């Protein structure tokens, strides 16, 4: 079950709003909101594809500029 | 009629210096120095350097010995310490330096010639015990030649200090009494067929020869006891005595038997 750390960069002033929105996603935990409007979060999913999908969904969230993968763990914890 | 040895000798001495420095001028005649050299690709080794290196390292290289024997034989035939008067650059420098000393009239003290033989013994023994070629480490000859080869002028300090000592304290002390290489060649010289001949009939005992001779002790047996030849191995065959003798009482002889 893959685990990834992602950095979500938000449009100006949207950081808090966004963190609220994305916190709702299943398999996503917000670990922190940086002063410069970046959100650090951890996502987990059944499959790598699942994660990639989740990331692409994040892109769609209003106020999100970019989503970057910072850490990726493929190893299966099952 | 008015033949003189010294210009020839000076020429030989200088050519030795030039040869050693020649690689820097891009010439490919001579490689190495007086401890170990290569003339037209023909390897030449200082016999004493061979002795030290071999006893120190316990490494034996046949061609190394061969080259050393060639040189030993060469100097044996030409009178042993001939090396000192005709080839050694240190000899050249100290010889010129001695003129300075004369003009200052200082450093009249003399150490006995035989000392050089003792220092030879010390060198061989220490080399064997310490496992390092003692003389090659401190040799002003090596330092001077390397200075010529690699423009490493700092090592000339050794030579300078020797000159200083000789001017101030004891004349020609290095060549006369300390240089183990001189000591080594004096052993060869003792049996060398090439000798200076002394004719008591012609001698007027004017003493010019003893004044010019760097190792004047070697003349005494002849002057005091009319020996027909200079027997001492410490005679460098520099031929200055011949040049200076007003009555031609001295000459070069080759002895057979």
């Amino acid at each position, binding site marked *: 079950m893959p685990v990834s*750390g992602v950095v979500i960069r938000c449009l100006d002033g949207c950081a808090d709003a966004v963190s609220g929105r994305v916190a709702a996603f299943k398999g996503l935990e917000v670990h922190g909101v940086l002063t410069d409007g970046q959100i650090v979060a951890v996502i987990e999913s059944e499959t790598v594809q699942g994660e990639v999908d989740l990331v692409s969904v994040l892109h769609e969230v209003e106020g999100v500029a970019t989503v970057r*993968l*910072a*850490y*990726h763990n493929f190893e299966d914890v099952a | 009629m008015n033949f003189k040895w010294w210009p020839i000798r000076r020429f030989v001495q200088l050519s030795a210096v030039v040869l050693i420095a020649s*690689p820097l001028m891009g010439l490919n005649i001579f*490689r*190495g*120095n007086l*401890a*170990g*050299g*290569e003339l037209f690709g023909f*390897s030449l*080794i*200082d016999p004493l*350097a*061979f002795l*030290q*290196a071999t006893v*120190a*390292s*316990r*490494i*034996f*290289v046949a*061609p*190394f010995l061969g*080259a050393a024997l060639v040189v030993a034989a060469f100097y044996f035939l030409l009178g042993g310490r001939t090396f000192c008067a005709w080839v050694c650059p240190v000899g050249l420098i100290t010889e010129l330096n001695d003129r300075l000393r004369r003009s200052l009239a200082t450093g009249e003290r003399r*150490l*006995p010639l*035989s*000392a050089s033989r*003792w*220092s030879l*013994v*010390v060198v061989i023994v*220490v*080399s064997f*015990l*310490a*496992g*390092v*070629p*003692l003389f*090659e*480490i*401190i040799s002003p000859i*090596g*330092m001077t*030649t*390397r200075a010529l*080869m*690699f423009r*490493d002028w*700092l*090592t000339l300090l050794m030579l300078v200090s020797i000159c200083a000592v000789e001017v101030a304290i004891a004349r020609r002390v290095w060549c006369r*009494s300390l240089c183990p290489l001189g000591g080594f060649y004096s052993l060869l010289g003792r049996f060398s067929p090439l000798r200076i001949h002394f004719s008591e009939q012609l001698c007027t005992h004017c003493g010019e020869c003893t004044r010019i001779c760097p190792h004047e002790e070697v003349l005494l*047996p002849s002057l005091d*006891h009319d020996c027909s030849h200079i027997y001492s191995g410490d005679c460098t065959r520099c031929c200055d005595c011949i040049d200076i003798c007003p009555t031609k009482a001295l000459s070069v002889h080759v002895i057979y038997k």
Partner: protein
Amino acid sequence: MPQTGVTRRRFLKDGVLMPLALALAGGSISALFLRSADARGFYLRPPGAVEEGRFLGACIKCGKCAQACPYNSIRMAGADAGIGIGTPHIIARQEPCRLCPDIPCAKVCPSGALDAKLENVEKIRMGTAVIVDRENCLSLRGLRCEVCYRQCPLIDKAITIEARHNPRTGVHSIMEPVVHRDKCVGCGICENACVRDKPVIVVMKSPPLQKDYYEF
């Protein structure tokens, strides 16, 4: 040969005092030098040099090896080398050994201090390269340097690259240059090429692998 008083006195002086004086002088000089060169630090000797102790004994300081080096890598040590004064050595940081295929320096050595029979440069053992300062090695920090590796004349033999995950960035790998002692000839090219002010990879005394052909 008649003996006169003069000569007897001289004989006494020469025969007894001089030897003593000289023995003292010689003894003290040698005592001064009687230490292994290691005590004065490691000297990178030319290719084919026998074990340091023996080398110091065998080298007659004729300088032919230095004259034979086309890159002027070989220098004759100064007085600071103590016992090793006048012996040939290589300062890798200034000019390392470029490993000429025909090893001209060893060829000309008369005394066996350098093994003139040496043919294969890969058999040379001057020393062994070691990354002495891992903290300051840029490759180990994850930067793409590896200059020592790419400049190594025995690339992929003496130095290889071992990649591992770089947890700091999470998506890059650390490409670590690894020296293999059994292959490294100690030419010092890596030490020479290292981009840090103080080279983090340097040639050190290698474990005595080299056989000595001229044993009595």
